[in-house]
Structure formats: C-alpha cells, structure tokens
C-alpha cells in the first residue's frame, strides 16, 4: 500500500475511495497457516498462556478435606480455602468484575490489546491447536499442500489424529471448566460411570463443541467477527497507546533486498525488504504494515519475525516495534503518567479493590434480617397492649448449628419479647426463619412508629452476633 498517499488522504473525503481500493477483509475463506518461529514475544506468550494451567489444575487442590476453590452452585456458596462466601455477599462479585474490567481497560489504554494477544483463551487455545497441527501436518507450506492434496491414507491418518487430539483437548477443557463448580473427584468418578446429571452433560457438550469449533475451526474468525471485546478494546486505544506498529518512516519505500547500496546506484529504499515474514507469522493473517487494524490482536509475533530478518540484513531491531502513533509520527511522546485515562481506570480499580477487601474482612459470621408484619401492622390485645409480629431471617455462616438469644434495644417501655423464651436454633449454611412477637402496654406507646433494634447473639460465643434496626408500629396515641 502506498503509505504516503494514505497519510496524505487520511481524513479527507477522497480518502475513503482510497481505502476502498485496499479494502481486504479476512472472511475466513482461506485458512491462515501461520509460521511459528522463536523469539522474545513468543517466549512471553508461552509463559502468559501457561497461566491457563491453573485453570486445569487448581480444582484438584484440597483444603481441610474439601475442594479448596469451589463455586458450589448447588449449595449456593463459594468456597475459597477456609472462606465461605454465601449469596448475600455476592455484591463483592460485582466489584471483582468491575476490577477485572477496569484492569482490562487500563492495560488496553497503556499497551493496546494485551489481553487479546497474551491472555485470551481464544488466542491461547488456538495457539495450542495450531501447535499440534504444526507437529502433525508440518510447516505452513506442507499444510497448504496437504489441504490441496487429494484424499489418501496419509492425509486421512494425519487429519484424523489431529482432530482426535483437538477433541481430546476440547473434552478436557469441558471437564476442567465443570470441576470448578462441583467436586473434582466426584465429577470424574461420575463421568467415568456416565452418570452425570443433565446440566453436567449439557455443560460438557457445550464446552466440547465450543472449544473444538472455535479454537480448531473458526480460530481468528472469532476475534474478527464474534468477539465484542476485540472491538471494545480497539476503540480504547489512543495516539498515546503503545502497540505493535510498523515504523513506516524508516521502512518505506519498501523493496526487495538489493545487492547494490544506494551509493552504488541502487534505488533509494527504506529498511523494509518486503519479505512478508511479518504476514506469514501472523495468526490472524493481517499485514501489520497497513497500520493499526481490527485484525491485529497485538500478539507481538511479527516483532519477533521482523527482528530476526533485521539481524540477517544487519539492520537495527525495531522496524516493527511497540510504539505509539505519536512516536511514529514524530510528535513529542508523553510520559506514561501524563495519560489521565489510565489514572481514572487505576482509581476505579483501587476503589473496587478496597471494596472487596472491606467485604472479605467484614463478612461476619451471622446476618439478621427482620421483616415486620405489614398486615396487620399491629394487633390490640385484650388487655389493651399492642402486639407486633416480626419474621426473623437468620443466616448462620459458621460451620455448625448455633443457638441464639434475642434481645431488643429501644422500642416501647415495658415491652415483652415473645417467641424467644428459650434460645433458638439456627442452621449453618442456610437461612433459618422464626417468628417473634413484641408486646407493649398501650399507654406507653407515644408515637405511631417507634424505632426498635433487635440483636441476636450466639449462646456459645457472644462474639457471633447480628443486629437489625426496624420499627414498632402502634395506633395513633
């Protein structure tokens, strides 16, 4: 592409016609067979993708005889080592999601689609699938040849092995996902006996096909046409964001490597020798030299490829490098701390993090909710006293059943609490509800609504307690 012309016409009306001529969309009609080569970013990518080992292995971790990390949907609780989070504390999940979203945004505003390139499961699984393909079918040119070749035993053998291995990974992915939600060892034994419940089969089959189709067959098409985050992240970069970029000022005009130097009468040309290595290694099949584009997941593999060529032609590294658009255009480059958007993201991250820390340290071991009866608000008894009815809902988050006493603070003078003469049993891990009446002499009631606070307290351990403020309703005095 004529970069100079592109630059001149960018932003003008005639520019759109220029763009049209170069409009080239990867519609998936041709399989991208990317070349794999070692390099700095390849190594980083291997490490970051290896984090997914946690996804496969962590569920087998045990803690006090139970699964260490278990999102126990069936029993509506989340076990994290010795910590148990019940649905009532699930507001922290929203903060966690906020934190993760902001971390994504912050990373994107600083260094573009870091998540896409290094951490995304689509990228990682595709990478592993292609690695297998590379091992079985050979390098890209061999794979292209094999695809075009007529079916014979050799081709069938290779293809069958490849697809079977892919399916094995897909199956294992489904299993590994499932065991975050049910006990891992129970799951395996149930799976082997083919006795999974319906929801278990549906999850497994969904993940099996999801993985096999997306990582094996669709690959970069998912990033191009299915993934919303790919597009969201794309629009969160600005001219200060560093991203894999082709230094067009240095590289253009590109041309095949010449024997003669400029001084010896060769044509003047930039450092790009138009070797297409950057295109050949690209897992999404884009040409980075066309500038920042939708298809680029910023995986950095083209940097490795270009640097290896620069070594061969004895030119400095970095013709394709992590650089901001400002830097490429020769504008003054701002420091990282002059990027206000990143600070806003970091501020939100800290707030969310603080909220989670507060939540986890203030989980409490018991919660109390009191619902005062609305129909009737109060009842006049035969001796003229006024009775209110309260539904107590106690959540005992400890590991065992507890007996609690009920006391009240505030309310009406000489009131009596009925229904809690003896300590009441609360079951652990689920809600317990009981009915409590409060009866007060009619002449002592001074207002229609009197604030009253209830306190429940464990008989065994006074530190396990919970309070709730509500109201005592009476007639107009």
């Amino acid at each position: 592409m004529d970069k100079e012309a592109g630059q001149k016409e960018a932003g003008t009306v005639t520019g759109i016609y220029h763009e049209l001529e170069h409009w080239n969309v990867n519609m998936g009609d041709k399989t991208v067979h990317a070349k794999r080569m070692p390099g700095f970013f390849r190594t980083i990518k291997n490490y970051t993708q290896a984090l997914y080992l946690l996804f496969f292995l962590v569920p087998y971790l045990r803690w006090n005889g139970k699964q260490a990390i278990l999102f126990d949907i069936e029993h509506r609780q989340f076990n994290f080592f010795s910590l148990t989070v019940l649905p009532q504390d699930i507001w922290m999940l929203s903060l966690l999601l906020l934190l993760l979203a902001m971390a994504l945004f912050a990373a994107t505003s600083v260094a573009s689609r870091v998540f896409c390139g290094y951490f995304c499961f689509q990228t990682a699984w595709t990478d592993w699938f292609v690695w297998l393909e590379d091992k079985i079918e050979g390098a890209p040119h061999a794979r292209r040849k094999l695809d075009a070749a007529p079916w014979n035993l050799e081709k069938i053998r290779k293809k069958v092995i490849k697809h079977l291995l892919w399916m094995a990974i897909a199956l294992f992915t489904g299993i590994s996902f499932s065991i975050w939600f049910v006990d891992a060892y129970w799951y395996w034994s149930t799976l082997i006996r083919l006795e999974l419940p319906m929801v278990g089969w549906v999850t497994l089959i969904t993940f099996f096909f999801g993985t096999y189709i997306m990582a094996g067959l669709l690959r970069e098409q998912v990033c191009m046409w299915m993934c919303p985050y790919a597009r969201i992240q794309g629009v969160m970069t600005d001219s200060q964001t560093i991203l894999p970029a082709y230094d067009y000022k240095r590289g253009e005009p590109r041309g095949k490597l010449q024997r003669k130097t400029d001084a010896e009468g060769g044509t003047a040309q930039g450092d790009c020798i138009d070797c297409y290595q950057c295109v050949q290694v690209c897992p999404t099949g884009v040409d980075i030299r066309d500038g920042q584009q939708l298809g680029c997941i910023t995986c950095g593999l083209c940097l490795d490829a270009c640097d290896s060529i620069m070594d061969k032609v004895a030119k400095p590294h970095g013709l394709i490098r992590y650089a901001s658009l400002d830097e490429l255009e020769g504008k003054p480059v701002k420091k990282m701390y002059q990027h206000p958007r990143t600070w806003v993201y970091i501020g939100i991250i800290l707030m969310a993090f603080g909220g989670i820390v507060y939540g986890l340290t203030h989980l409490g071991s018991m919660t109390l909710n009191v619902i005062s009866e609305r129909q009737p608000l109060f009842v006049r008894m035969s001796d003229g006293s006024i009775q209110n009815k309260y539904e107590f809902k106690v959540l005992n988050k400890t590991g065992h059943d507890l007996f609690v006493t009920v006391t009240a603070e505030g309310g009406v003078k000489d009131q009596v609490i009925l229904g809690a003469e003896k300590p009441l049993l609360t079951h652990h891990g689920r809600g317990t509800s009981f009915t409590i009446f409060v009866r007060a002499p009619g002449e002592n009631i001074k207002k229609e609504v009197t604030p009253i606070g209830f306190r429940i307290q464990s008989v065994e351990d006074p530190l396990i307690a919970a309070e709730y403020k509500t109201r005592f309703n009476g007639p107009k005095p």
Partner: protein
Amino acid sequence: MSEKHDAPGIPTTGHVWDDDLADLTNPPPKWWMLGLAASALFCVVYFIYYPSFPISSTGSFTKGIGGWTAIKEMEADKGEVDAVRGKFETRLKGLTPAAILADSELTEYVKRSGKVLFGDNCAACHGQNGIGTHDKQGLFAPILNDDDWLYGGKIEEIHASIENGRQGMMMAGKDMLSATEIDTLANAVAKGQPNATPLFAEKGCTGCHGPDGKGIQAMGSANLTDKVWRFDSSVEGIKYTISYGVNSGDPKARVAVMPNFKEAGKLSDAELKKLAVYVYKFGGGQADAPAASKAPEAGVAK
C-alpha cells in the same frame, strides 16, 4: 422485454413496470430453502404427534399419537409439588392439631402452606392474615390475631370452631328495656365496667356474660371488660347491639355466623387441622398450661 439490468443472465419474473423496472427471480439461498423444508416437515410431525385438528362433525379433535394433553402435563407438574409436600402431609394425617403444633418442622410447613387454604376459605370474612373485615355493623368477623377468643383460643378449641362452625346469640333488648336503661347499660359497658350499674345483674345480662361480665366461653358470650370489641366500641354501637341483639331474629339484629366447615364437606380432616394450626400461629393462640387465667375472654356481643 428489455434485459437492461446490471445482473445479466438472471431471469426476471416477466413483469415490467414504468417501462424498465423488473423483478429478478433469484432463488433463495440453499440454507433458507432447507429451513423452509424443515419447518414444513416439523409441522407435519407436530400435527401427527400432538392434538391438532378439530373435527366438527363429532365435536371432537384429532388426539395425536403422542397422547399428550394439557391436563396430563398439569397433573405431572402437580405430582412434583405433591411429592415435596407428601412427606409432611402423610405425617399430618395421623396427628392431632396439638401434636402438629408440638412439631416445629410441621408447624413451619403449615405456616407456609396454610396461606392458600386460609385465603380460599376464611379470608372472605376474617380478612387476609386474619385482620378481620368490617361492614356497616362494625367488625363483621372477629380478628384472629389477638388473644381474645369467644370460644377459646386453645388449639383444640380453635379446631372445634372451624369444624363445627359458630353462631352467636344475643336477645334483642329493645322490648324489655327502656331507652334510659339501654343508655345506662351501654355507657357502663363502654367503660369496660358492666357491673357499675345494678341493671347488668337485674336485667339478666349476667346469665350469658357471667357475673363479672367476662363472658362464658361455653356460650361464646363476649368478655365485656377487656379492650377487644366484637362489633363496635362506641356507646351508639353498644346501644344498637343491646337493642337489636345478635342473630336474634330481629331484622336489624347484628349477624355473627360462621359456617360448619366439616359439614360443608369442602375441606378434608387434614386441611381442617392445618387451618387450626395456621390460625393459632397468628399470634393469639393460647397454650394449655396458663389457660385458666386468661382463656375465658369471650363474647359474641360486647
């Protein structure tokens, strides 16, 4: 017809409008045609499997080979609910209401499941949650949340009231008492001290309401000394009750009738027991032990 369109080779429908407008007859995409065929096939299978066509001559319809009916599906769903309730319901059947009350799990079950039963059978007069209903005579049916019971607030007594129904009875006093006497009596009763006037004993009120005016539970007569009123607490309202009575046959008499639910046959024994426990748990139910001092606070008219 001119073939002057920029998609040459594709036939048109043959209709031409405005000299040169024509419709191409592009076939729909293959996936679309497959979808159409599949939908048509689905219809055929559906019509064979499920009830579908009305047959007007017999007033019936095709039954379908699957044997599906909405009633069957509903019964199956009901079966699921019944299975959950079943273990409680079976235990309920063999127990007395008092025994149900003694079992906290069963009591909890009745408190949760009795709402519909109460709403269907009792709330029309006693109000949702037993808050009572009012009409022009004042309180139409008693409040069930308080601790004042005409016929007793122990669990067996509540059960008996629901099973057999109740009918209040008070003579109309307008022909036996003078206007002044009615006025004196009404004022004394309104203050909660019926014995403040000798008329209370002289005119035979004590016959039903007891010598102390606290009512006699066996007769369902009202306690005239407490703070809970059966019909109306105003002096005018009390005068009205004394004048025309309750269910006295006088056309202006107050009405206090609760039907016999056992005889009506609408409710099963278990349901009657559940209702007794449900009502007891409104907050006014009386335990057996200290009943002697508090129980007889009753009365139809006061």
